[in-house]
């Protein structure tokens, strides 16, 4: 087939784009993934019965801001990476800003704390399960995000995979925070961040295979 014939074939029906259908193709799976992850958290870990009293603590909202801003930034970068013209100059490192702020805060609090309190601040009561729980809760969001990203045109597959995984990790962590009693930035900067980086590493490793088009 000659190229000119291919072009007239491609242009045969009006090449209209159904924006509403494409938007549904994004928000529907995203909602399904988030709900699946939430249900998994409720069944497997339960919502923290002391959630309302936790929410009176300022640090609860610091944690919320950290996780919500990480999720939102990762999503924005992911959307840009899905658009070829923007992808090459997408400022992907923006997703690390909340982590950097948290790390400064966590380190400062550690340094100010009496030496005997430092280890409990770092380990909390759940250091041994926290990262794993976040990684597991990110799985449904990871899967739907792959589905979503495949509808776009990512031209940097490894990076897109990493950001996609980081988004799943951040939103998974946000959902996990409805269970988790840990509020100390010193704890979050290690165990939460580790849990969020696990799906990011998986995404980077599988990006080329999962997202090729």
């Amino acid at each position, binding site marked *: 087939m000659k190229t000119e014939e291919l072009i007239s074939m491609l242009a*045969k029906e009006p090449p209209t784009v159904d924006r509403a259908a494409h938007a549904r193709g994004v928000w529907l799976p995203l909602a399904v993934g988030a709900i699946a992850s939430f249900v998994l958290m409720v069944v497997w870990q339960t919502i923290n019965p002391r959630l309302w009293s936790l929410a009176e603590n300022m640090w609860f909202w610091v944690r919320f801001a950290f996780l919500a801003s990480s999720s939102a930034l990762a999503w924005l970068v992911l959307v840009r990476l899905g658009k070829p013209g923007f992808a090459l100059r997408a400022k992907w490192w923006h997703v690390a800003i909340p982590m950097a702020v948290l790390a400064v805060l966590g380190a400062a609090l550690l340094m100010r704390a009496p030496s005997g309190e430092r280890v409990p601040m770092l380990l909390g009561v759940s250091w041994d399960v926290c990262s794993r729980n976040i990684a597991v809760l990110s799985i449904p969001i990871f899967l739907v995000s792959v589905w979503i990203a495949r509808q776009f045109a990512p031209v940097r597959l490894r990076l897109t995979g990493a950001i996609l995984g980081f988004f799943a990790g951040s939103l998974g962590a946000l959902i996990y925070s409805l269970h988790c009693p840990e509020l100390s930035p010193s704890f979050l900067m290690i165990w939460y961040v580790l849990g969020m980086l696990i799906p990011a590493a998986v995404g980077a490793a599988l990006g080329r295979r999962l997202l090729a088009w």
Partner: protein
Amino acid sequence: MPADNALIERETVLKAQFLSGLAGDARTYATCLSELSRLLRSFLRKRLQAAPDEVEDLVQEVLIAIHNQRHTFDAAQPLTAWAHAIARFKLIDFFRRRGVRGEQVDIDDVEDELVAHDDHGAQDAKRDVLALLDELPPKHREAIHWVKIEGLSIAEAAAKTGQSESSVKVNIHRGLKALADRMRMPSAQGTGA
């Protein structure tokens, strides 16, 4: 600088054509793809000097990619930058499939938009897209055949195939995506003419 003005002018025209295509004007859409194919050919020929007979196949692959992913074009960006990013991606993908390591290939350009410096005519593609279409699942193949080859409207094709109008559209879309996948498969290399 007159050369720059010409570039800006061309970008403006191409983008306007592409956008009016997305708004439903098939004629200007075809004109736009035609001009893009000229730019793509020149871009790819320069970078595929060792494999000149692959150029046209890759031009067609990029054109189908551009069509399939047209919803990812954002009117806030230059069309040529968007098309360039897709062409660059497909070129790297091509090298990777061929087993050439990406780092050995110079695909980074001074300009990040498609710029044609010379204009040779199209050579024949090695791979026959029609033959690849025949390998698609029947639902996809029929929808594409009646609408894209025979030129029936969606409604007419729906009546012919017994599919609903919306599934004709979906099957065309999925079929063209499957076509793009097949173009990447090693078995697709060299099939057809």
